[in-house]
């Protein structure tokens, strides 16, 4: 039975985000206090034991990531929060920042204690100017109360580039440069912001930390799917009755999200496909709806969990047309640094437009598949690697829709 379980959204609707006392009244900043009484190594071990994995989309083990930055020797280390929520159909980070900013600060401050950082940055999506105001007000309240101690948090605003959600592009942008990914290795935990060890975590990841510190790793690890424990905030868009958000344990299946929580497709129309994880996610057919909303389970069906966006299409939607629009998005958002993404996203869009206009053939589809495959394993960053996924997944599951468009 699908039910919501609120961890990161535990204070949603219960507190006034602009009143720090509300947060403190909900045991706020107690976890930070607890963590600061612990050895940093013990904090990291606790996070490791919880098996919390990054909620930004890459699913890397959070405690392990922290341990790399902890081990790195440097005169300065940084904690960066990736709040560049640019994935279309995703607004989970906004929900947290808008309703419970202090849970984010507390998570960041625990991380800072664990790795030995004194400075934190929140890189906030350029289209969220009002969130920036909320964060700034909340930070000044936290400073006034002295709850953050010697940990300083600064809010920086992005300028609207999708690619800046990629952690190294985000770092470049923070440094005042053109938002473009760096090649890896070196990874940010060893060389990040201004070349210093840096932890970049997503808002939702940080928001889990205070609860893990409070209730313990074992409690957290027992929630949801063991390989990706905890909850996931999903945001429902498209042809679904309840176009809203839910926080669910990770063993919840896609079908449960769409039908139990989402109330199914409206108007008695049949379900066609669902795209999970944002605009670079795979389109999933009806036959795979019993997959849990967890990282490895999604990977097993050739999809990604991504940001947790759930975009539902009913039978009246044209898959090829939808994917054509998506390829246009990637052509627009490619930063242009690496050749296969720069040229490849434009060619994907060109081929999709041709096919969608009824001018394509099997030859074009074959070329698109080959191009998508090459991009997947040769582009510099996740944007280019994932950009062909909508096309490739729909060619796989909805090939007939493409063939119906051929000359």
């Amino acid at each position, binding site marked *: 039975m699908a039910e919501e379980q609120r961890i990161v959204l535990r204070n949603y609707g219960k507190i006034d985000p602009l009143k720090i006392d509300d947060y403190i009244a909900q045991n706020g900043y107690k976890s930070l206090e607890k963590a600061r009484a612990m050895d940093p190594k013990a904090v990291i071990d606790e996070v490791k034991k919880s098996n919390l994995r990054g909620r930004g989309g890459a699913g890397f083990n959070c405690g392990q990531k922290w341990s790399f930055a902890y081990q790195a020797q440097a005169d300065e280390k940084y904690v960066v929060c990736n709040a560049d929520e640019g994935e279309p159909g995703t607004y989970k980070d906004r929900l947290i920042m808008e309703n419970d900013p202090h849970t984010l600060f507390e998570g960041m401050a625990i991380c800072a204690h664990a790795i030995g950082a004194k400075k934190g940055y929140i890189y906030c999506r350029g289209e969220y100017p009002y969130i920036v105001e909320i964060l700034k007000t909340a930070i000044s309240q936290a400073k006034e109360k002295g709850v953050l101690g010697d940990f300083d948090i600064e809010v920086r605003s992005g300028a609207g580039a999708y690619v800046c959600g990629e952690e190294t592009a985000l770092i470049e942008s923070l440094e005042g440069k053109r938002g473009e990914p760096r090649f890896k290795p070196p990874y940010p935990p060893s060389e990040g912001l201004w070349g210093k060890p840096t932890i970049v975590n997503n808002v939702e990841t940080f928001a889990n930390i205070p609860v893990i510190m409070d209730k313990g790793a074992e409690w957290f690890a027992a929630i949801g799917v063991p390989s990706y424990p905890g909850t996931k905030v999903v945001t429902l868009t498209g042809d679904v009755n309840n176009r809203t958000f839910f926080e669910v344990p990770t063993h919840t299946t896609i079908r449960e999200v769409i039908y139990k929580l989402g109330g199914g497709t409206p108007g008695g129309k049949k379900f066609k496909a669902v795209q999970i994880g944002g605009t670079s996610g795979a389109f999933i057919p009806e036959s795979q709806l019993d997959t849990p909303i967890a990282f490895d389970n999604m990977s097993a069906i050739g999809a990604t969990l991504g940001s947790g966006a759930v975009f539902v299409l009913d039978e009246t939607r044209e898959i090829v047309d939808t994917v054509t629009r998506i390829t246009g998005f990637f052509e627009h958002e490619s*930063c242009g640094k690496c050749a296969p993404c720069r040229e490849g996203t434009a060619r994907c869009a060109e081929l999709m437009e041709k096919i969608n206009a009824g001018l394509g053939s099997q030859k074009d589809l074959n070329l698109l598949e080959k191009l998508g495959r*090459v991009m997947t394993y040769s582009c510099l960053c996740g944007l280019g690697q994932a950009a062909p996924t909508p096309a490739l997944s729909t060619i796989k599951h909805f090939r007939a829709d493409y063939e119906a468009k051929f000359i």
Partner: protein
Amino acid sequence: MINLTIDGIQVSVPKGSTILQAAAQAGIRIPTLCWHPDQAVKANCRICVCEVEGNRLLQAACSTPVTDGMVVKTKTPKVIEARTMILELILANHPQDCLNCIRNQNCELQDLAAEYFIRDNPFENKTRGYELDRSTPSIVRDQNKCVLCRRCIDACSVTQSVYALGLENRGVSSMVVPTLGEPLIESPCVMCGQCIHACPVGAIYENEQIDELLAAIADPDKVVVTQIAPAVRVALGEEIGMKTGDLPMEVLVNGLRQVGFDYVLHTNFTADLTIIEEGNELLKRLKEGGTLPMFTSCSPGWINFCETFYPDLIDNLSTCKSPQQMFGALVKTYWAEKMNIDPGNIYSVSIMPCTAKKYEASRPEMCDSGYRDVDLVLTTREIGRLFRMSGIDFSKLAPSQFDPWMGQYTGAAVIFGATGGVMEAALRTVYEIVTEQELQDVNFRMVRGMEGIKEAEVDLNGTVVKVAVAHGLSNARKVMDQVRAGQCDYHFIEIMACPGGCIGGGGQPITKANAKRAERIDAIYIEDEGLPIRKSHNNPEVKMIYNELLHEPLGYKSHELLHTHYQFKNKKYL
């Protein structure tokens, strides 16, 4: 040491090595496009991708450090498919006009297309339709050919610290543009041409003016006279299938006669003259408390840089014109009179390793002869093209001597072509003027070589002269910042805009690696050692011009013809 396997070959390489370096050691060349031997790794072209066991994604060989036990495969079907398709993508957004391209047969993209036998590109060819930027007299930019490897940006910003080039737009609309997307002439570009060497394709090149030379040669009324800069000979052979330094000077002279020059003279003559004027200027400043340190003024890229970024230090620049412009002023006055030729009929062509020289010759003040002092500047590369067209077999061409009055030179002039050369030449002369003793060992080795900033102290009969030599403008910037801050006590500083000096100039045969620059420097010093006279003040023709025209260094005639002035280049974005 790290042990790994590449294509089944065991290699052991130092920690921190990349797959690209390890593969080279294993005897495997991995193709590259954005990689440059003397620049930071960019990893943006993705041509060098390889399979690394345990990785789902292909890894860029240029940026991936090796690890113990790593198993790398450089030519699996997956790798070849990726490289081929990436090349197809780049080529489909590149003009298909190799035959007309200035870099035809000298292009890294063309080489890759041949290596991966790209025949039928599945992608439709598109051209971007950008206009050429011909705003400077030195450099032409063709955005349509740009592969966005960013090597030019690195050369301009890291090597030269000029920052005239940057990126605009994103995705497939990305382009390398001069400051704020305006024409190059509006940017702080100093026209050094190092971006040309960095470019793997034909997206940046010299303003080619061979046709103007051919028109002058074809004109029966024009007396076409040429001067050759000292750095040209050592590199020109590279353009005609010879090894660096192997083209003998006398054969080069005959080659120039063969392609139609009426008289062949040498910039080395005015290089020697520069030493007399500049050496005396230094001594005068030292004696009379003039502005110190004094900076050399032979390198027009450096002059542009100083006028743009360090206008407050303009008074430190020697007022001596560069050897090219001294030559230009004299050939239409002194030489014309000697030869009894109407200076109005003289078409003065200089052959230079330099793109900034094209700009220098066009400066409005450079007409002290009463005419345009230098009518045309051709780079080493342009003369190389002319030589190839001529069909001459240079191994069979007889030697020929320079024409009189402005053709003799010393080893001191030859070394102008290498970083530290002007300094060494000046020291050879200044030492003898001050001490009135013969300099026994003319070799000042401490100012030679590829080190970015070199320093030396020379004892001139109790007076210690402190000198510095910098090449490459980022090194020049470091020295200039010290001078500006009053943190150094040099008396004399030689600056050359290009890494290695003129032998690495923007007009030289395309030079990807600094190693090639070092090779040319060696050839320069071999030439110096082989010459009978190695001090500028012992050049007989130089002595003669002082007897007959100039009378004394820094005299009235010198000031009229051989010296110049500088002014602040007020670029709007600085």
